[in-house]
């Protein structure tokens, strides 16, 4: 007899009950995953090579002895391990990622495909220049785009990330000051209190003293506040524009002028360049040096924290001091200047081996070619529009520290609206995780209490923003109604509950070590 009943096709009538727990600890698609040091085996490898035929080693007496302590996994095990790990991560492709100041925009896969062309990915930095003319052409073309978009004179491509770009730009300023014989006197760098932490760290690293410029009550820097601090000892200002409160500095031109009049330089932190690409050029504003985070504005992937790329554009006054290497036209095509003593200019030295983040240059140029000059301008406008749309959707409910006025590409809120709710900015952010969103940037900038910095980027559709605003409103109202448990215990639905950072810092465990053998109960 055939079993004609088959499998049940209704959703079943079992009561939906509380989480009952599972034998494995897994929750269907959410899988627990051991460390490779627990699941791997010392004798296993997932890569096949034949042992080399007899040969006599030439290692002197420096051959390594004993176990290295590295277990291996077969290929299927390794694939599963890392895929499971990936499933515990939130990415831009997962959902809205409004992390202010970080510009989490769409990462087009065309850019990945281009960076993997063997002509880019499989080329060695020290091959003869005759064999890498296309790579040099790409660097040259990227430079042309960056210089055109910023209205500057030249670009140093090699910095490996934003902070490295800052270092490079400040070194160029220091070199220019030294060249003028003012190295002993110009030792102070002005940094607004709203600045990224990297700014004062960078200035201090190369021996500058940092003086803090207070922010005005509206979150911007006033030219008078700068003038009050400028003196013969002033080397430069490091100013972010648009600033970390998401505002364009309205007196930026006057600030630049004041610095130039005093013989000092204007370093602009370009982290927020995304708001103004195609709308305004830093060169026209009086900027002398600015790093560009290719991983923000030009969409090279953040990759869980890198690799980044931070080219620095330079004004006429600083261009001669750009570090090596750089690309110049030669007798037979393009060539590289790799040593300062052979340059016509006055490079201050070298800040990294080889030529910088080529893989990121390819992706960034691919992004720029795709957008074109019209698309990049549209992207900036959409980024600003989206941020203001969120601001408009939340106004009246969440407090804006500087009043209800337009922002650039990110909208800033403070925590005064949470007063007496028992919910903190952190709690609110963690509750966003349960709603399927990555939290916004919290507690930065420092000048705003309990700051929440929301940057949607141009990659979000209107319907995505509408849902986000609705979810934020629902959360905000719940907080005001006193539904504190929804926040203080959040996230409830992530792979992990809140983690004990105190414990991690008090007794740091920074690597896996074999566990003490567990003593079997004798009785």
């Amino acid at each position, binding site marked *: 007899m055939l079993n004609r009943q088959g499998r049940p096709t209704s959703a079943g009538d079992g009561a939906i009950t509380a989480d009952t727990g599972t034998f494995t600890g897994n929750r269907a698609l959410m899988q627990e995953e051991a*460390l490779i040091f627990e699941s791997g085996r010392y004798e296993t490898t997932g890569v096949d090579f034949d042992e*080399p035929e007899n040969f006599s080693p030439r*290692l002197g007496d*420096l051959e390594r*002895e004993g176990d*290295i302590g*590295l277990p291996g*996994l077969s290929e299927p095990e*390794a694939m599963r*391990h890392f*895929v499971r790990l*990936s499933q*515990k991560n939130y*990415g831009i492709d997962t959902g809205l990622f409004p992390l202010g100041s970080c510009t989490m925009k769409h990462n087009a896969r065309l850019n*990945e495909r281009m960076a993997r*062309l*063997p002509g880019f990915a499989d*080329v060695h*930095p*020290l091959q*003869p220049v005759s064999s*890498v*003319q296309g790579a040099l052409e790409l660097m040259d073309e990227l430079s042309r785009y960056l210089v*055109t978009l910023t209205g500057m004179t030249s670009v140093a491509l090699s910095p*490996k990330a934003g902070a490295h770009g800052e270092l490079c730009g400040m070194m160029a300023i220091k070199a220019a000051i030294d060249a003028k014989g003012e190295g002993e006197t110009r030792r102070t760098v002005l940094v607004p209190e709203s600045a990224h*932490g*990297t700014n004062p760290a960078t200035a201090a690293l190369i*021996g500058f003293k940092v003086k803090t410029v207070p922010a005005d009550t509206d979150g911007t820097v006033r030219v008078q506040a700068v003038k009050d601090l400028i003196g013969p000892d002033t080397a430069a200002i490091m100013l972010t524009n648009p600033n970390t409160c998401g505002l364009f500095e309205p007196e930026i031109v006057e600030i630049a002028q004041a610095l130039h009049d005093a013989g000092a330089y204007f370093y602009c932190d370009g982290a927020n360049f995304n708001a103004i690409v*195609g*709308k*305004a*050029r830093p060169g026209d504003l009086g900027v002398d040096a600015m790093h560009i985070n290719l991983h923000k504005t030009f969409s090279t992937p953040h990759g*869980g924290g*890198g*690799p980044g790329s931070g080219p620095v554009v330079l004004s006429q006054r600083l261009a001669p001091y750009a570090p090596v290497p750089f690309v110049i036209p030669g007798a037979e095509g393009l060539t590289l200047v790799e040593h300062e003593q052979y340059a016509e200019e006055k490079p201050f030295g*070298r*800040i990294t*081996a080889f030529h*910088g*983040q080529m*893989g*990121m240059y390819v992706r960034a140029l*691919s992004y720029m*070619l*795709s*957008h074109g000059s*019209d698309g990049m*301008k549209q992207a900036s406008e*959409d980024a600003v529009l*989206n941020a203001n749309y969120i601001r*408009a959707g939340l106004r009246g409910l969440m407090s804006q520290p500087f009043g209800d006025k*337009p922002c650039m590409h990110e909208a800033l809120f403070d925590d005064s609206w949470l007063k007496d709710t028992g919910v903190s900015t952190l709690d609110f*952010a963690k509750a966003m*995780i349960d709603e399927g969103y990555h939290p916004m940037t919290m507690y930065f900038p420092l000048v705003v209490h309990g700051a929440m910095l929301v940057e949607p980027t*141009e990659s979000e559709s209107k319907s995505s923003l509408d849902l986000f605003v609705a979810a934020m409103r629902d959360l905000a109202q719940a907080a005001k109604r006193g539904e504190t448990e929804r926040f203080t215990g959040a996230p409830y639905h992530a792979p992990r*509950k809140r983690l004990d950072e105190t414990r991690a810092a008090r007794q*740091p*465990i*920074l690597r*896996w070590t074999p566990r003490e053998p567990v003593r079997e109960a004798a009785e």
Partner: protein
Amino acid sequence: MRYLPLSPDDRSEMLAKIGVDTIDDLFADVPAEKLLTEPLDLPRRKGEMEVERILGRMAGRNVAASTVPFFVGAGAYKHHVPATVDHVIQRSEFLTSYTPYQPEIAQGTLQYLFEFQTQVAALTGMDVANASMYDGSTAAGEAVLMAHRVTKRRKAVLSGGLHPHYADVVETLSHMSGDKVVSLPADPRADEDILAAIDDETSCVVVQTPDVFGNLRDLTKIAEKAHAHGALLIAAFTEVMSLGLVKPPGAMGADIVVGEGQSIGNSLNFGGPYVGLFAARQKFVRQMPGRLCGETVDAEGKRGFVLTLSTREQHIRRDKATSNICTNSGLCCLAFTIHMTLLGQVGLQRLARVNHANAVALADALATVPGVEVITGAFFNEFTLKLPKDAAKVVEALADKGVLGGVPYSRLAPDADCDDLLLVASTEVNTDDDRAAYVAALKEVLA
């Protein structure tokens, strides 16, 4: 534009909701005369196909390593990367995630960082490693700064076997921060007297092994002398695969170990992105630069990972931070972890032996070419040839014959008076045919 979801109607509706008339009302803080009215002088938007054509043409003008007999090293190495690596690092959740500041939804990144730190510590024979630096050269620069913090001295001594780019990075940084550097002259035969350069003012000694010429160096005596004078030994390497076969710096007394991790999991990429490795003794952990991932538990007592000891970092310490670094080398570090996991120690050791065997075979073959001398005694997968002609010219001539034969040392250090030295690397990718082609081409070029 395919990356921009808003339609013209959306934009009008949104402006109305915001309460402004035009988009430029939102740019009101930009001085009116500075607002661009015309599009910039760059081409219009392009479809995927056109972009592929343009970039494909540029890529086509480069000689890819896998298309020729290839022996170029000197800090970056051509190795085979398993297909699994490239697949996994392109998964959205790795590729498009951010620095794991929200650990509840970033355990994937944090766990591999913890695995990576453990792998690097094991490989180098050190206690702890950070979550990576930009590359080997910047890691070396940061190591010197760290040694200055630990010893409260400000003089670094650099071995003449250190990769000249690494030395340049340290020198630039030191010059800018007002610290002293003593750089020993190029040392192709590893016979410099570095012990004599160590004194009571020395903060650290930086020695590379295998060095830029390929020499394997025993660091034990250097460590002893450095420690006797209150200085630290910083050991550097550019070929991490050597650690599968060669005694690790941690076993020779190094206090800090830095190096380039590109060889495991990462392509050549014309010089970047790469992944800097940074390991140290436990007692120095709070002076280390860069990010650190640590183990902890969540509110339910389940094991989890977080970024930790972050008070060392710039976003908290600002002008008192240990370093201005804000990024690690995330995806490259993931590529390293995956490849290393696939290899395991047996795979790594075998692969290292294949590299070494190929290099030995190549050295022996090239030594038969009239006028050529292999000057490196103990080496891993890279050695130095002394040529009867200018090495840069020889390399160009070899390239004309379709062989990429190495790096003339003069390209790295034009003033070192080593114009006749050629650095040659050989890895698992080289075949008997490659070697034969090299020998034949070199004979012709030198004839």
